[in-house]
């Protein structure tokens, strides 16, 4: 009996914490997204008093109002920022894969004694502040910045390139910040791979390149997919990178939510933006979670 109550205490404490600080806030966001804007602090008219009992719930549903969502559809700013977030995240994920895969492959093929050091060198930038790493690129990409100084000095270009405050700078920033998330899962699948499989394919008449596509890539696929999720999901909702490296024409939904909240102080619309962003991410997040669970089950076996 005592054992059982201890077990429920162990489950209960973290459960309650996550319930209160993770799940309940979402219900509140949903509630506010369905409220009208009012000039008061907090600037919304509450539409559901959680403590007013069951009667209030019926009342609440009859008064539900999707005005803020209609507003999101009517105003092209929001649609454009969603689409542009998806586009920027997809392109960045693809670029990260193009750089990350050869890198992870190189790491897996490096002499075994080097690998712990290489691994640490990949992880180290992740520990240093994200904000600082994004900041570092401002000085490099500015019109009078270090990259342009270098390119002008070597004579490759005659006029400085405008990179900062464009989408290109945002791609660079996202790839740079999330590259370790792409490299690590791919490396861990490639490292486990048995080289004799490639040798067998070559013995059976494959060229090295076709053996790579027929054997290595399919075996590395779980790592590739995990890496793509780990870059794509945070990139969609990214705020710091488009704000600091992007220009005024760079639309991303995280930035739109931020300015809706902090500049326009329109909380209901900010909440509606958050709900739609979440719906957009639910599919990749659920897929990703399923994949993690399957991997854990496979490892436990």
């Amino acid at each position, binding site marked *: 009996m005592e054992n059982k109550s201890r077990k429920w205490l162990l489950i209960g404490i973290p459960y309650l914490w996550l319930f209160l600080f993770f799940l309940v806030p979402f219900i509140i966001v949903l509630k506010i997204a369905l409220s009208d804007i009012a000039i008061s602090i907090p600037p919304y008219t509450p539409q559901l008093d959680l403590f007013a009992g069951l009667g209030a719930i019926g009342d609440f549903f009859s008064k539900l109002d999707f005005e803020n969502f209609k507003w999101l559809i009517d105003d092209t700013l929001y649609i454009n920022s969603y689409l542009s977030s998806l586009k920027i995240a997809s392109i960045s994920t693809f670029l990260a894969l193009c750089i990350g895969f050869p890198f992870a492959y190189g790491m897996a093929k490096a002499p075994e004694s080097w690998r712990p050091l290489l691994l640490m060198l990949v992880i180290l930038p992740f520990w240093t502040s*994200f904000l600082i790493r994004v900041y570092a690129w401002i000085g490099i990409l500015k019109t009078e910045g270090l990259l342009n100084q270098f390119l002008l000095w070597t004579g490759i270009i005659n006029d400085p390139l405008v990179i900062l405050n464009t989408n290109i700078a945002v791609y660079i920033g996202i790839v740079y910040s999330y590259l370790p998330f792409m490299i690590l899962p791919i490396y861990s699948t490639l490292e486990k791979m048995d080289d004799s499989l490639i040798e067998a394919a070559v013995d059976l008449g494959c060229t090295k390149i076709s053996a790579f596509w027929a054997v290595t890539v399919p075996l590395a696929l779980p790592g590739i997919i995990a890496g793509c999720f780990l870059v794509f999901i945070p990139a969609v909702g990214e705020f710091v990178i488009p704000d600091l490296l992007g220009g005024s024409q760079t639309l991303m939904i995280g930035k739109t939510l931020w300015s809706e909240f902090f500049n326009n102080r329109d909380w209901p619309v900010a909440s509606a933006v958050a709900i739609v962003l979440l719906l957009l991410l639910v599919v990749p997040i659920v897929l990703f979670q399923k994949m993690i669970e399957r991997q854990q089950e496979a490892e436990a076996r």
Partner: protein
Amino acid sequence: MRRFSWFNATSLTFGFVFLYVPILLLIIYSFNDSKLVTVWGGFSTKWYGELMQNDAMLSAAWVTLQVAFFSATIAAVLGTMAAMVLVRSGRFKGRTLFSGMVYAPLVMPEVITGLSLLLLFISLDIGRGMFTVILAHTTFAMCYVAVVVSSRLVTFDRSLEEAALDLGASPLDAFFSVTLPIIAPAVIAGWLLAFTLSLDDLVIASFNTGPGATTLPIKIYSAVRLGVSPEINALSTILIAIVSVGVIVASLMDKRMAKTRG
């Protein structure tokens, strides 16, 4: 003997250049005498001196350290408990919801986590300040701790704990004298991860902070929006140095522990 081809060497070199050159340039230009960050004006440490005079920066740093310490510590406890639940408790009602709540914050966009917690604090009428930032950081950091600790718990040999129980230890005794010492490296790693995440966070802190609780990232962000400044380079260099030394020491310790364990 495996061949290490020129292709692999090139992609590794290119990757490391890409990862490290921006950080190296940032560090080099923190010693620049010129106020113009991108024009080299000779070696100087004057920006470090000015940083030490900047009271607003120093107090922000102090707030940040406190927030990171408390949230990492609470997160380490809660995250370890969550990991025990995930690995040990088998099936119970609401398990799917629980594991969903543990993994979802890892991939949740920060703007949503920040906004939703702020709205919670407002509806509960909790005044915003250091306390709310600590609560917010604890919540997402505990999920990272849970992931790190549960990966260690999976490989844990339960017969050790059962032996302690057979010899008359209470479950709590068995946890503190057998389980905890074995999973300690993972708990410490989780604590360090939580500490760094808290130190680093701009978005969630911006939503949930109040008067008098400006953290360092918020301070850096508002300075960076005004443009590049050598003082920020100096501050960044100090932070990078602290973190690098910490990570290197931690990994050396880990290596030594792995050796003594055999």
